[in-house]
């Protein structure tokens, strides 16, 4: 499910060059100009894509499990800000980031899977 983007946002994304929307991309920075309220993180092949995501305050991030194995999304900051239930294939978890900060997280079933959301 792709969120709708403005043309300017699409151009900005293309201008960022190699960072296209495919699994395996390492980081994605959403510029403040882009009018998007939701952004997707794909879980596949035992990894989060993008691994590092930078978004403006107020963004809702939706994790979708495209893998054939269940995963979870659990933040590792002191406040344990978010924690999904187990996500089987095609299940989703969403969280709206209302405060700026850095939010590292991992899959509690496969702890080698880690990711980070940076909220600016």
């Amino acid at each position: 499910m792709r969120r709708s983007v403005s043309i300017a946002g699409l151009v900005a994304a293309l201008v960022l060059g190699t960072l296209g929307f495919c699994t395996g991309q390492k980081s994605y920075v959403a510029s403040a100009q882009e009018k998007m309220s939701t952004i997707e993180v794909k879980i596949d092949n035992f990894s989060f894509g993008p691994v590092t995501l930078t978004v403006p305050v107020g963004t809702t991030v939706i994790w979708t499990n495209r893998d054939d194995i269940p995963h979870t999304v659990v933040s590792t900051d002191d406040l344990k800000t978010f924690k999904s239930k187990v996500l089987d294939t095609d299940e989703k978890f969403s969280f709206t980031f209302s405060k700026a900060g850095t939010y590292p997280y991992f899959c509690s079933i496969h702890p080698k899977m880690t990711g980070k959301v940076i909220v600016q």
Partner: protein
Amino acid sequence: MSEKKKDEFLNDHNHDGVDRRGFLKCMAWAGTGAFCVMKGGVLNSYSLSRISEISTADMMGELSFVQISDSHMGFNKPANPDVAGTLKAAVDKINALSNAPEFMLHTGDISHLSKPEEFDTVDQILKSATPKDVFYVPGEHDVLNDDGKQFLERYGKGSKGGGWYSFDKKGVHFIGLVNVMNLKAGGLGTLGHEQLEWMEDDVKHLKKSTPIVVFAHIPLWSVYPEWGWGTEDSAQALAYLKKFGSVTVLNGHIHQTMQKVEGNVTFHTAASTAFPQPAPGKADSPGPMKVPAEQLKSALGITDVNYKQGKQALAVVDSSLA
């Protein structure tokens, strides 16, 4: 030559298990009214009045058990849309073993999503296995959503802390460990301080000739850390076992058989009864390995373990379902 004759005789189940040559020898030593049995090279005598109490296996001085692992009840994708069917095939295989196993070890990932009906289905299927006693340790798929509360309620009677415990069978000391709780980001399996302290205490007073079997879900040696196939603090656990002459470590989690020998420790991982996983590094990720349907059963399996008193090492034999 005489060793071979001894073994042949001990395997003869049609007789009463008495080695007549050995009996006469024993009679000469022990006097009259003694019933002698050769168990793995060691003569044991019983008074004749106790013959009926001694089971064939006791007379054989053997211990036989089976390890199964990673049944993932609830999984329904390629390469296996029917994990209940393959678990049933594993039970059939167990029931067909010539040395009837006394009990079973399940090294975890019993369920796929920690759902009650998934655990129920496994319990139901295992009821038709000849060995009635099953000892479980959890996999990471068994402790989802509730920090293992459901697992402990079902399978953790008599266990300590997060579900660890030990028991003895025919002089072999079994230790069930839990290394799938409180996993840290970027980390491997973990035993934790409390469990390690318990284990140190548990083995402290055992004679060093006691054969030890340790079973846990995630491998207790470093199979492939990149995929989380290892346990961070297993070295400490193994240090407590250094004095023992025979240590067998049985694990699951990686859905393929692998073996490593390090001094007096034999490490062994079992196949899954649900789906295979790729060999370390041979794929992008350790997910289910898709194989053609006709090859599935040959990529799944059970592990048969036999121990003869007097011998140090346990005989660990894997067999695939097809």
